[in-house]
């Protein structure tokens, strides 16, 4: 009687677990695992546009990494992604950290600032892209007009039209859009630091800068792990903002070309210039995925270790 009841209970439990797990598992398999595997397999074939050709092994991978035409573009895009990652680390994450510290100290109107800093994060990238494209317009954009008003008219630039300023301008627009996210994560991190530690540091004669760099920064390492990993993934998957502001070709002449644009252009074709090439496009996508997954794992592992060490 007793075991019967237990068995029934166990079966009910198993059914309940299956009921909860199977639907999401099915969705994951259909919409995540299967597309990933099919992209992987497609990368091993020759493609005429959308029409699949014969199996060619690793040729697509070799082409995009070392091939005459592809390699230059691949490595250029990769260098741009690296630049974007480091630049965003400085102007997005570090500024986010400073803003968090600023808000944590609850200056006048901090409630307003807390909302204001996070506000752009909820805007859509399309909106932010168009907005900043208008701001940066060389003839009637806000930035150049502002420079004029400040008496700095000779600093006027066609920001998105020249090699030297186009990618930094995109980084800036991205930082404006996203800075609220690291700020929020860091704020939560700082708020978790026990008050006694900060008070003790103050009693020991820490000045503001020492407090920030020697006490607060090391203690928010878990927040850094999160923001840095997400920033890395975001920087190497960067697509929407450059697509809206610089176009599929990474205008001007490829100086804003990043892996996301390059992959899209290769796989799906640029209506006004290029062709569809699924094989090379998929090879690029697979390489990007492997690279991002590998590095993100290493970053997380390394920073987690540091968290424990501290």
């Amino acid at each position: 009687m007793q075991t019967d009841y237990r068995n029934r209970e166990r079966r009910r439990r198993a059914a309940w677990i299956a009921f909860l797990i199977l639907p999401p598992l099915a969705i994951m398999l259909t919409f995540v695992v299967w597309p990933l595997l099919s992209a992987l397999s497609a990368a091993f074939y020759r493609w005429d546009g959308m029409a699949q050709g014969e199996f060619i092994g690793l040729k697509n991978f070799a082409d995009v990494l070392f091939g005459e035409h592809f390699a230059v573009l691949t490595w250029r895009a990769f260098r741009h992604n690296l630049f974007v990652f480091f630049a965003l680390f400085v102007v997005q994450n570090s500024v986010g950290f400073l803003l968090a510290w600023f808000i944590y100290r609850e200056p006048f109107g901090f409630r307003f600032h807390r909302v204001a800093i996070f506000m752009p994060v909820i805007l859509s990238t399309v909106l932010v892209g168009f907005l900043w494209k208008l701001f940066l317009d060389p003839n009637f954009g806000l930035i150049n007009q502002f420079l004029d008003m400040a008496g700095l008219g000779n600093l006027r630039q066609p920001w998105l039209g020249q090699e030297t300023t186009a990618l930094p301008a995109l980084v800036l627009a991205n930082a404006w859009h996203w800075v609220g996210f690291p700020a929020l994560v860091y704020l939560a991190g700082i708020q978790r630091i026990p008050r006694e530690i900060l008070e003790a540091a103050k009693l020991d004669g820490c000045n503001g800068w020492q407090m920030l760099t020697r006490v607060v920064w090391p203690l928010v390492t878990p927040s850094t792990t999160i923001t840095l990993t997400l920033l890395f993934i975001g920087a190497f998957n960067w697509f929407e903002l450059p697509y809206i502001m610089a176009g599929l070709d990474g205008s001007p002449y490829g100086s804003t070309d990043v892996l996301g644009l390059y992959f899209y252009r290769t796989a799906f074709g640029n209506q006004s210039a290029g062709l569809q090439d699924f094989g090379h496009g998929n090879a690029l996508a697979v390489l990007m995925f492997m690279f991002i997954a590998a590095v993100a794992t290493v970053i997380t592992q390394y920073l987690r270790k540091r968290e424990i060490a501290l």
Partner: protein
Amino acid sequence: MLAGIQTKSIVRRTLGKLALTLFAAATAFAAPAKAEDLTLWSWRQEDKAAYAKFIAAFRKQHPDINVKFEAFEAANYNTVLSTALAGGTGPDIVQVRAYGTLGVGKPDYLVPLDKAMIPEFANFPDSAIAAETMRADGKLYAVPFASQTMLIIYNKELFEKAGVTPPNTWDELVSVSKTLKEKGINPFGNGTATAWQNETIVGALLSSQIGKQFEQDVLAGKADFTDARFVGALTKLNEIKDYFAPNFSGVDYAASQQLFAAGRAAMFAGGSFEIANFLRQNPKLKLGLFASPVAKAGDPRLVALYYDGGYAINAASKNKDAALKFLRFLGTPEFGTAFSNDLQNISPIKGVAFENPLLKEVAALNQSAMSYIMLVNFRYQEPTGSVLLQSGVQKMLAGKATPAEVGAEITKGIATYYAPFKK
């Protein structure tokens, strides 16, 4: 008891309805599609109403054939179409792109056509026929529908205000631009921040200097893009860049269109497709057109021309005879006239009567045309001629490359797949 009867009757009624619906659905599936029902796939959703008119006109001659127009989003059209064709399905009549693989991938998916099957091909210029010929097998697969022309559109009122007339030679273009600028009018609205605009600028402004002979020599393997005719034309373009929109390197396509449409620039080097655009934005504009200026008086004046696409028959279609009848209709001047006037597009069919005087003018300019060289000849493998030309010219106009370097870079890129350029 009463309640029971009621429930029963409701159940019976519902079941009856269900059975009826099922029966209707079953017959709809089971009934063989009428032999004369054709489907036509297109990427032009905005043309639905116009096609309803064209199809009605066709049905006056062939009341037994019905054509159903189905449109897909332009950006996904090629994907949807090639997937359907690869699966042996798809419509009877396919709107296909021009050049290369016509956007369908392989020749096997379409029915090859010739003049015996469609005598109306005689109504088309050779360049239109060539546009719908597949590169892989050199066979003709579609009846062409529209051409686009690269030329210079100008604002008549601003020209009058500055006291200038449309130029014939390049030197005249330079002096017209100079006069306009002195009178405080931007000569060109063009900017270069959008990559593909650089290709249209070259086609619109330089065709007369590049010339048909150069194109023939390139296709015959006798010349490449380091040729003096091509590099010389780029040099001329480089010399007039100061007459483009202020800070042109940062002015994108939309901003350059606005400059011209708002009457803040006198000329726009672009495609005939801009005309409708400009007039929609500013119906008060008085527009004029001219072909690219010549190097010296007496040289032939040329516009650059390409075709948008055509109508083909699906090889898997069960109604090929009816489809052929419809394709023949699409090659007649009556259709060309309706197409041009309803859609404000230029049909390449000879004998079309244009209502819009500007379109009529474009059609007249088309009589002396070379092809829009990269799109027509070098867009079948990466790096395409278009990709190379666009970034090269963008770089040159930004002052970061010389015309000779651009020519060499284009030649080097195309040489990776075009045998005559391999040395």
